[in-house]
């Protein structure tokens, strides 16, 4: 079995070492060895002090995001066979690092909450009628409008791919703005009016310069860059409507 050299960025503040450093490991691998498998191998066989997040191993939970050779990737979805030479593993960029490959996603979660990414619809809140127990109806054509943007698994790779978020952490960022757009496009939703003020801000859709790397790295092909820029069209329309209404 051949081996692959893994350089992993370590950060162990509780041991009094407040600067990150690189540590090399040689990992036996075959065609089916993912980056996550390699990290598991390091923890089980070579160095039990390594910390990283993971759960499902099948690109659903979105918790094993790391930088692989400077590109945000899900560890479970990238394979050592695809990399020539040594592989550099670092924590997701643009987030505070707590320990080794573990980042603090708090800012991302705050930005998600800010756009109210859930159905807002008062018409089903009336409980004194049978209407209150009715389910929402939606045609396939209505669903088609937002379906592409509904695949987000909140892995945060797009935030690590976004230099505008890196330059200004107040920027709501790709995933949050995509979810805002996704719910604005949903025929069952009535919350657009509440979400637009967030999108209209400088740190809403307008911090985006369509770098487009967020869409390149998205493991679910959501195309957040398209959603954010469609959001710009919506925000521009919102401004025009505001001017005409006075």
């Amino acid at each position, binding site marked *: 079995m051949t081996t692959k050299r893994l350089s992993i960025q370590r950060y162990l503040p509780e041991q009094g070492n407040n600067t990150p450093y690189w540590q090399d490991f040689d990992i036996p691998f075959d065609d089916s060895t993912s980056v996550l498998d390699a990290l598991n191998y390091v923890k089980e066989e070579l160095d039990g002090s390594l910390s990283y997040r993971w759960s499902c191993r099948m690109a659903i939970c979105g918790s094993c995001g790391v930088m692989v050779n400077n590109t945000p990737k899900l560890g479970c979805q990238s394979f050592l066979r695809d990399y020539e030479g040594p592989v550099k593993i670092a924590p997701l960029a643009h987030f505070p690092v707590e320990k080794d490959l573990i980042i603090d996603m708090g800012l991302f979660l705050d*930005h998600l909450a800010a756009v109210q990414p859930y159905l807002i619809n008062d018409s089903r809140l009336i409980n004194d009628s049978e209407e209150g127990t009715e389910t929402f109806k939606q045609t396939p054509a209505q669903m088609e409008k937002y379906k592409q943007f509904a695949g987000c698994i909140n892995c945060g790779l797009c935030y690590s791919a976004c230099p505008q978020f890196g330059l200004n952490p107040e920027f709501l960022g790709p995933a949050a703005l995509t979810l805002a757009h996704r719910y604005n496009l949903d025929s069952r939703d009535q919350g657009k009016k509440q979400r637009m003020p967030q999108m209209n801000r400088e740190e809403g859709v307008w911090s985006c*310069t369509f770098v487009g790397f967020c869409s390149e790295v998205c493991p679910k092909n959501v195309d957040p860059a398209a959603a954010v820029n469609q959001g710009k069209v919506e925000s521009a329309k919102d*401004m025009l409507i505001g001017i005409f209404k006075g």
Partner: protein
Amino acid sequence: MNKGTSLNNDASENMRRSDEPIWWGLFSAGGVCFAVFVPAAILFIALLIPAGIVGPDALRFERAHSMVFSLPGLIFIGMVICLPLFHAAHRIRHGLHDLKLGTEHLNKVATYGGAALLSVLALVGFAIGIL
């Protein structure tokens, strides 16, 4: 305190509407012009004619004068000079932000101000020419 998390969408300072739609609109219009009209303009005015591939008579004085100072000339100035200027200003402004140069306000005034100034210059030149 935390700007990104304010769930109450009030009219406070950090919820202020950006004026970016105006600049983005000009940037987009200018981007279409830069992609569709500017290549032909550069090809003929700055490459084929100066290099002598297309006859030098193509831009002799009387001909150029009657072409520029006309309604098509005004459309040309709008589509090939003014809008691309605002497109360029927008990209330079965001480029300065990307390179962490200058300040947001100063960059805005310098870039859009420059584009507006040069556009006015072009339109004033046109006005002098037709009068």
